[in-house]
């Protein structure tokens, strides 16, 4: 199977702080990969480099064989860890914007997802609660037939009911031929959807592999392995 993401010797420094320290990894097409680690481990930095929001200090990143740029932005569907939509927008404006810029955006699927999330097309973005905004952006992101989905902390800060709804939406709506990268520190809630996991600690990959094989090898679930890796 081909690699959708290829990362070689990737380093990111902020002045004297090293956020990512010479990491290398490949992500195969069709896999859901969990990037796990506590706050400050480098998860968001890695994702921001993949989405073109940050530039690496050193190393090479290729997505679908291309360096990060206009092409990769057109095939990556990104859920940031904040509300990034313009305040003046109504939901229909956000839908139009995604439809205008991404050829892979599916309006019908978006309407279905809005329905599932109990959101109305005429609602103003600015008036939505945090959970509703999270659901809206997830609906926009999952309505694309992207080659790579990148979700940064998709269930952080939302109530348990919204959390289940978001997880159901992810499981049921992402393009099966695509790959998905999900960062989280809420491992217990999400571990069942990961094919592969990668543990990031202080900018380095300290453990990675197939989620099922790791469970068998360690005799523990991913949440317990997470605690083992990061408590020491």
């Amino acid at each position, binding site marked *: 199977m081909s690699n959708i993401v290829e990362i070689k010797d990737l380093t990111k420094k902020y002045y004297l702080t090293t956020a990512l320290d010479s990491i290398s990894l490949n992500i195969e097409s069709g896999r859901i990969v969990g990037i796990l680690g506590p706050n400050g481990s480098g998860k968001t930095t890695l994702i*921001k480099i993949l989405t073109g*929001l940050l530039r690496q200090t050193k190393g090479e990143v290729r997505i679908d064989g291309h360096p990060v740029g*206009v092409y990769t932005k057109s095939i990556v569907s990104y859920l940031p860890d904040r509300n*990034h*939509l*313009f305040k003046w927008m109504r939901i229909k404006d956000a839908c139009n*914007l995604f439809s*205008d*810029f991404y050829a892979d955006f599916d309006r019908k699927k978006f309407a279905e997802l809005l329905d599932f999330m109990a959101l109305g097309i005429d609602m103003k973005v600015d008036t939505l609660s945090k959970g509703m905004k999270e659901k809206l952006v997830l609906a926009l992101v999952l309505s694309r037939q992207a080659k790579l989905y990148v979700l940064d902390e998709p269930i952080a800060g939302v109530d348990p009911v919204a959390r289940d709804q978001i997880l159901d939406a992810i499981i049921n709506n992402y393009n099966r031929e695509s790959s998905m990268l999900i960062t989280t520190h809420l491992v217990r809630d999400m571990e069942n959807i990961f094919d592969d996991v990668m543990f990031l600690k202080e900018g380095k990959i300290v453990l990675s592999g197939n989620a099922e094989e790791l469970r068998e090898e360690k005799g523990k679930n991913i949440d317990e392995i997470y605690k083992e890796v990061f408590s020491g």
Partner: protein
Amino acid sequence: MLRFMKYEIRGTYRYITGVLILSLILFTAIYHYVNRGSTGSLGGNLFVTLCILLLFGTALVTFLYIVGSFRKELYEDTGYLTFTLPLTGYQITASKLLVALLWFFVLGVAVTAINLVLIFAYLPLEISFGELLRQIAEMLSFKHIFVFLLDAVLSGVGLLALIYFSMALSRVTFRNRKIGGLWFAVFLILAVILGYGRYRIADLLPYSLDLGNLNDGAMTTGYATNNFIFMIKASTVKINIAGFVFSLLTAAALFLGTGYLVEMKTDL
């Protein structure tokens, strides 16, 4: 790029409409008061002064609002949307610049039109609107208008490119949001350097293109045009060639520099 401009316009048109309505109200109030012919009352003078101050304040806030749209992308969460759209840094910069120019043009035309209408509505002029236009057309040739527009566009693009470059350079150099306002210091320093450079180059090469004598193929020199890129008088329309080229090149360099910083150096 046009698609991005569409959303830029949609995001700002309400504010611009509000500014135009406020301007209409304030100008009408001033003309109405002046037309009453009453003089010297403290309240009246205070009222007119307040209206004028409000107009200046609105103009300043509107200018900062329009150019601040670029800064918002660099410092606020909407940048996560803008910079993950499949657009280059140059396209984003160009879109912001063109929409800002469009709004300045719209505001300029609208405020001029409001004033013209109010002059004819309130002031006792013995000339018709059509006659006024005819007399203006007699005074100004196509060359005057062309040079005036060229000057306005070049100055506008140059100023906006300098502001955007200062903002982008400040963002790249100082990651700390709290000192993001340093862009204005960067802007002032660059404005002084570029202004002096243009003055010096126009001084060293005082050759002007006289549009009034183009048929003679005239290229004149003269100290009268040294410090100006454009000189428009009733009978002469002159462009200082070196100053004009310098302005064009610096505007292009600032635009490309901004695009490069956005594309290659900006970390959100």
